[in-house]
């Protein structure tokens, strides 16, 4: 803006100069007008040749001089002091010639009167040829007065020569008067030319003064115009700059914020815009960022809550499924159990009777068959007792114990299986575990099931890694990994279901993981599986340091 002010100030200065210069222009214009008036009076004077018009002319010349005096400085400025002196001189010369002409006119008048009077006087004195010649002379006199040229005087002189014989002093004076008039005419003519010359000079000066002033003003106006143009351009440029800056400081940040809000609307909270400064937009940006941040937190916790809900729902569905399966299994076990008991007793009675009987053919064969029945009954008993016992109603006996010790005991218990299969057990037990308060026997049952499964899963010389660690204040983590074939992905959802087994028929009941899951659930723990076919399987068991009451499992 200040940039735009500078040329404007210059323009203002130029304009005020123009205003100041307008006065000399006016005067210069007056000068021309006065001079035109001088020339008009001059014409009148030359035409009328009287004192009146002379006075008028003089008056105009005086005014001209006065005007010139008024703008002396300006004129000097325009045309230089030398020309100014020349102008003054021209006016003086002009005035002088006017005076000479005035004198000339007086003398002409006198000479003309004398000529006319002498002519009238001489005429009666002559007669005959002289008179006729004289009348010719008078005619030439008239021609001289009219034409005022050299021919006229020449003819007059020729005619006068032929009158030389007439001896008359009056005639001589008459001729002298004609000669004088002619001289006066001649002088007038030369004065006239001279006067015109000076007049032309003065007019040229006056016009040049006016022209100069006009040009100056023109220049000033042009300069002002340019300055104004520069101002305009500067203002425009300033405007553009201000607009740009405004755009930068207002529009652009708002656009940035707008884009950010659009991104936020699609759930993208990344790169919140940072708008520096202390203006409203910066405050708006801060507020928006705070809002977005809070929104992001809210969205995040909502997503987390939804995910937790999904997980919980999945877990609930899973737990409900397992519970239903457990109930069905227990019901089936119960219904099977009574007929099984009958078979057991009948077979037992048969055995008793056979043993009391004397030998008879095939007695040994019969006893062998009964043993076979007992074996099957025992298998069934194992299944039904485990189902009825673990799935529904085994008491929880809480006692303090060392988790690592329980694992050691379990591994020792399985030593025969481990040794016969040349399995390597890597124990990586943390020394920083709190004492556990839970059901040790049932917990050992879980470890037994899982380690037994791992031993069964690995090939000869396989490796089983067992590690314990502290998760937090409330839980310890037991990890049991094997490098067996792993569990096919499609089987993983079913491994905790009862009677689900991948072992050969008769080798597994399909209850180990089901029971382990049920025990852990009852004891407030959790079991998870990670398996990669071809690489092995890992069971992760979360065990609460203090048993958490499981409402569902309570009697």
């Amino acid at each position, binding site marked *: 803006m200040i940039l735009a002010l500078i040329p404007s100030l210059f323009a203002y200065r130029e304009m005020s100069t123009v205003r100041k210069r307008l006065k000399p222009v006016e005067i210069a214009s007056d000068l021309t007008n006065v001079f035109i008036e001088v020339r008009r009076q001059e014409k009148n004077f030359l035409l009328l040749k009287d004192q009146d018009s002379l006075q008028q002319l003089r008056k105009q010349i005086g005014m001209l001089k006065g005007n010139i005096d008024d703008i002396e400085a300006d004129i000097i400025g325009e045309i230089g002091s030398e020309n100014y002196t020349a102008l003054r001189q021209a006016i003086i010369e002009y005035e002088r010639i006017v005076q000479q002409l005035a004198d000339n006119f007086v003398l002409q008048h006198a000479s003309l009167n004398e000529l006319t009077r002498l002519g009238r006087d001489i005429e009666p004195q002559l007669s005959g040829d002289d008179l006729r010649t004289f009348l010719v002379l008078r005619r030439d006199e008239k021609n001289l007065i009219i034409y005022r040229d050299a021919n006229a005087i020449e003819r007059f002189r020729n005619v006068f020569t032929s009158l030389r014989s007439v001896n008359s002093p009056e005639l001589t004076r008459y001729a002298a008067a004609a000669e004088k008039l002619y001289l006066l005419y001649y002088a007038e003519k030369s004065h006239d030319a001279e006067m015109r010359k000076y007049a032309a000079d003065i007019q040229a000066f006056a016009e040049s003064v006016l022209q100069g002033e006009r040009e100056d003003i023109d220049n000033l106006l042009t300069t002002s115009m340019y300055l104004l143009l520069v101002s305009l351009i500067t203002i425009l440029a300033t405007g553009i700059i201000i607009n740009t800056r405004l755009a930068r400081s207002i529009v652009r940040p708002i656009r940035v914020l707008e884009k950010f809000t659009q991104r936020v609307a699609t759930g993208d909270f990344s790169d919140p815009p940072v708008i520096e400064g202390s203006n409203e937009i910066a405050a708006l940006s801060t507020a928006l960022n705070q809002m977005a941040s809070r929104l992001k937190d809210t969205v995040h916790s909502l997503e987390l809550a939804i995910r937790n809900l999904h997980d919980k729902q999945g877990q609930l569905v899973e737990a409900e499924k397992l519970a239903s399966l457990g109930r069905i299994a227990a019901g089936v076990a*119960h219904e099977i*159990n*009574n007929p*099984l*008991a*009958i*078979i*057991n*007793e*009948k077979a*037992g*009675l048969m055995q*008793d*009777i056979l043993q*009391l009987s004397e030998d008879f053919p095939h007695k040994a064969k019969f006893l062998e068959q009964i043993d076979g029945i007992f074996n099957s*009954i025992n298998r*069934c*008993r194992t299944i*039904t*007792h485990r189902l*009825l016992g673990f799935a529904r*109603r*085994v*008491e929880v006996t809480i006692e303090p114990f060392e988790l690592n010790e329980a694992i050691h005991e379990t591994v020792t218990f399985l030593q025969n299986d481990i040794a016969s299969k040349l399995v390597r057990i890597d124990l990586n037990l943390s020394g920083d575990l709190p004492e556990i308060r839970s059901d040790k026997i049932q917990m050992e049952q879980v470890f037994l099931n899982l380690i037994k499964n791992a031993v069964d899963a690995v090939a000869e010389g396989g490796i089983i890694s067992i590690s314990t660690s502290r998760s937090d204040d409330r839980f310890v983590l037991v990890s049991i990994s094997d490098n067996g074939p792993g569990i096919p992905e499609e089987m993983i959802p079913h491994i905790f279901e009862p009677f689900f087994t991948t072992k050969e028929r008769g080798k597994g009941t399909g209850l180990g993981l089901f029971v382990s899951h049920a025990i852990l659930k009852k004891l407030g723990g959790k079991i998870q599986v990670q398996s990669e076919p071809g690489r092995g399987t890992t069971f992760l068991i979360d065990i609460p340091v203090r048993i958490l009451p499981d409402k569902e499992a309570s*009697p």
Partner: protein
Amino acid sequence: MSQARILIVDDEKEFAAALAERLCLRGYDATAMFSPEDAPALAKEIQPDVILLDLKLPGVSGIEMLMTMREFVPGVEIILLTGHMDLAQRIQGMRLDAFDYIMKPIQIADLIEKIEKAGRIRDRKE
């Protein structure tokens, strides 16, 4: 105490009969009773040393039956038989001074051991 009188109360006739026979073969005086309604009267009549009582009898709660038996046969030792041992019932049974429990299908050796033990305790009481 090889002549201990044993009363088996179980509505599962085949089971009870076979078991009674087996016990008899082992020298016990075992009687099987299949009807819960008649069981108390029979128990009163024969005054068994040990009663094998199924807790799941039709129409009558095992616990009620246990209390009736105690009333009718003072000093009798009762071994609870069950294929479906509810924790609550087991606890209640033990509170009511049942001697022990055994789960079906029975391992005959276990049962004999419990019966012998119960008989010894009963002898001591007398």
